[in-house]
């Protein structure tokens, strides 16, 4: 019996046997996808033009970085990333601090706040379309009643539309940030605060010298997760503006979709896909390294 438990080879075989079905499924799923985009990214294939695929070498990749519409999508995604993550981090921290107290209905407050996170993104997009409605929506009505604004074209004004999408992302994901930071706050032992108190630190000093540094791992995690999700943002953009007006709200995913399924430029779409995959691989490798250091 002792022999059986310590048999390394047997143990390994057993482990592989259990793990392999899932891994085979993943390989069958992923291998053709990777093969397809890598191969086709070197070809000129346009389905609307009846002509056989033509090998073009790196021309598609060279075109990507000169494509003003791609660069515009990159910029829009970048704006959402930078503003989304910073606003959500600050607002999320404030909410986490407010929740990290003893008060009645604490559980209820957390549950209510958490509801937006999982709402179907298409539903969220539709719902904000009602809220943003220029003439009959509640948002302009409230702004008007408070004498803040005469009325804003939330989704039709090219200089506003991207920020309207930002607001939807903030609405849906700030609670997620807040709950992660709350988990971080709750894991800080009380003794740490007591020690800081004994040392005569003011609450502000304690916050900046004790609380914030201890929250750093959680902030890193939040930033990584939000980066991944905002990088692939599609649904709310598609529902609210479809990338418009013009290309003012086009993100990377929306632009890739347009190239593939409106212009049917399969070769170029594949090159776009490879570029985005490489960008995310960098993020994934950072994440794996950080996770390993943690545990």
């Amino acid at each position, binding site marked *: 019996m002792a022999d059986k438990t310590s048999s390394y080879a047997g143990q390994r075989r057993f*482990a592989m046997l259990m793990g392999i079905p*899932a891994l085979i499924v993943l390989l069958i799923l992923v291998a053709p996808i990777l093969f397809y985009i890598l191969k086709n990214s070197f070809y000129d294939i346009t389905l609307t033009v009846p002509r056989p695929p033509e090998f073009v070498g790196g021309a598609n990749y060279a075109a990507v970085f000169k494509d003003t519409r791609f660069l515009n999508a990159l910029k829009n995604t970048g704006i959402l990333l930078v503003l989304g993550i910073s606003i959500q981090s600050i607002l999320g921290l404030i909410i986490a601090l407010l929740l990290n107290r003893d008060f009645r209905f604490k559980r209820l407050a957390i549950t209510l706040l958490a509801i937006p996170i999982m709402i179907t993104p298409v539903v969220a997009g539709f*719902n904000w379309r009602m809220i943003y409605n220029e003439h009959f929506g509640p948002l302009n*009505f409230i702004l008007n009643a408070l004498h803040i604004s005469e009325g804003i074209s939330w989704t039709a004004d090219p200089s506003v539309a991207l920020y309207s999408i930002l607001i939807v992302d903030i609405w849906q994901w700030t609670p*997620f940030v807040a709950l992660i930071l709350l988990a971080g706050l709750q894991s800080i032992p009380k003794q740490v605060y007591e020690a800081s108190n004994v040392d005569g630190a003011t609450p502000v000093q304690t916050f900046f010298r004790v609380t914030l540094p201890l929250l750093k791992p959680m902030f890193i995690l939040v930033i990584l997760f939000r980066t991944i999700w905002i990088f692939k943002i599609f649904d709310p953009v598609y529902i609210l503006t479809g990338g418009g007006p013009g290309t003012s709200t086009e993100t990377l995913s929306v632009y890739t979709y347009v190239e593939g399924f409106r212009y049917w430029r399969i070769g170029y779409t594949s090159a776009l896909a490879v570029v985005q995959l490489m960008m995310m691989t960098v993020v*994934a490798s950072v994440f794996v390294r950080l996770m390993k250091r943690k545990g």
Partner: protein
Amino acid sequence: MAKEEKKKHKELLYNILLIVIIAFFMFPVYWIFVGAFKFKGQFFHYPPVFFPTMFSLANFKAVLVQLGGMRSVLNSLIVAGLNTLIATVLAIFAGYSIGRYKWGGDNLSFFILSLLFAPPVVAVTPLFTMFRMMHLIDTYPALIWSYMLFNLPFAIWLIKSFVEDLPEEIEMAALVDGYSRFKAFRKVTLPLILPGVVVSALFVFVFAWNEFLFALIFTRFNAVTLPVFISGLIGGHEIKWGLLSALSIIASIPSIVLVVAFQKYLIRGLTFGAVKG
């Protein structure tokens, strides 16, 4: 005494602030809800109607029966249900195997995590071409298969984190008692990770239920899921706000159940097990 008073005021201020914040986050949820109980004309009314006056299920009936929304609800249920079942079964074994025996090393972890991080739009063109060749466009298998791309790695990773929480000694004891490895897994470990399996399955279900991009491209009429059906109604030249709101409530049910009933595991799930919460 004054200090005590001051502290009380401060707490009151914090509570008010929190209520304002919660109101901001809840208002859109409330807005879907009232929308489903409004007459058509009330959507084009100024000032907007903030409280429902029509307490009937007319909008629900109209969208599900007359517009054929029921079909998309069923499609979503079938696709999300089968995807959840297959992904969960595969992930129980794989998550256990990787979590307990730590094989595969960094490369395997990296492979699985990259799948979770990759933008789905990358896979859309290749999958579309493949499904067209295999005549799978507008069928359930196309959606069930493509959702594996993110749901299977997710479920493996989450279940693995629950397996890692269990001390190895529990299983060792069973082995010493004469259990085979598989029996030890089935009789000892599986019951202990069951909460993790349930949580993982719920997330997988909601992700499949909410998915939009793949369903938008891989379906036409027969296999249209709820989000695609909703999006189609928005695209029409006359937006049926009341009907859409009713459908939106139905679409939100699984998400709300997940948040309310499994709040404890919400963050753990969304961070693939990285934050235990």
